[in-house]
């Protein structure tokens, strides 16, 4: 996939994945990198950036099978942004589709 396109939509993908439920890093990065051919490392940087911008929060959950997991949770700002960006994207994608 074109690197420029990917860059633009990664944040949206991460935020959208977290709309339904909180997820921990491994779970989230596996899901996205399975579809988009993007390294987990890049996604951790995206997660960090989103957290630094106040779109995400993290908390730790004890795990029975190993060390505690860090879960990512969408903040109210994050949720509003995710929804606005999602609507923009869908509108954009449908117009592009008409032109293809």
């Amino acid at each position, binding site marked *: 996939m074109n690197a420029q396109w990917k860059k633009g939509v990664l944040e949206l993908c991460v935020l959208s994945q977290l709309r339904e439920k909180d997820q921990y*890093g*491994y779970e989230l990065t596996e899901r996205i990198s399975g579809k988009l051919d993007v*390294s*987990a*490392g*890049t996604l*951790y*940087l995206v997660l960090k950036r989103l957290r630094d911008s106040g779109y995400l929060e993290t908390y730790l959950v004890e795990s029975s*099978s190993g*060390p505690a997991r860090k879960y990512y949770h969408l903040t109210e700002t994050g949720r509003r942004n995710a929804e606005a960006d999602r609507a923009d994207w869908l509108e954009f994608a449908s117009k592009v589709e008409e032109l293809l």
Partner: protein
Amino acid sequence: MNRNEYLDRLASLLREFDREYQQEIFEAVNAHFEEGLREGRTEEEIASDLGDPAAFASGREAVEPVESAEEPHFRFEEEPREEPISVMVNRLVRGILGKVKQEVGQASWSFHVDNTPLQHVEDGGSVRRIEISGGALDVDIEPSEDGLLSYAYPANASPALNLQRRGDTLVFSSAETLRTLQERLRLALPESVDEIAIELSSGDVRIETLALSVLSLHSSSGDVDLDTVAVEELTHRSTSGDLQGDNIRFSTLRSDTTSGDVKLDGSVLRCAIHTVSGDMDLSGDFPTCELSSVSGDVELEGTPVYWRVKTVSGEVDLSLPNGDTTLYFHSRSGEAGGVWRSGVRMVEDPEEAAIVVETVSGDLSL
């Protein structure tokens, strides 16, 4: 690339970044390895999922500016005891230096193996400071038997060694070389020398039976081995090189490594060590210690006056003698265990504790 190789590579790439960023990335990467391994994947597969470690270094610049790469790693925030440290240091160091000078007198010539003859440096008795710089040069330093300053370096060696005298300073330098071109410089020093500064890229340093006021050692991948050495102020910095000391007595030590381990046996009055993934193993007398590491383990044995230990995922293992002490322990997911003696009292306020251990996911054992 396996997990250790990945973490080492990451550690050296992130070296210039602030510590908060290093820790955050290390935590994420570590957790990713843990999860992947739990699912039965190999370290190599997980490393390839994570992608090129260099992305964490270049990605950071794209994300936000680096605020301060030069943040000091350690600060002794306050004197741990009002009265004594400086007084105590001076008194002890004088005693220590005296004692080691005696040991120096009886030292035997034990570790040279090559046959390169020693050459005397003219008027070497007035040299007070030695500076050595060279890429892959190995350096061995011993006390002089005859009171003269001498050195040995293979005559036909490439690169050639330059010798320069500046006042009471003697400078040895060799051009940066390929790692394979390993040459060895051997030095025999009289008592007049009390400062040494060494800067190498991959060369190893070995010092035996010497007392100095200042010793500064930088070698990115070379190891440092000190045997029966007393120094008032020792500064050590390396990327993957280890620091090992036996029968050492330092009044101040600052060591900063990425993946290099630090192993010391002896006494250090004030000790500050920071590693990213290197382990620390200190045993003997370490009254004041500030140790911090991301994923390195810490083993510390001695009598605490003021100990501060911080790790992200590294395990902490403390061995304490009998007697009362106070401990403050804080961890997000690590546990404290081991044999708790009645003399160890847990306190709520880190300011009140002789020992403070803070870790994110590492365990503490006593």
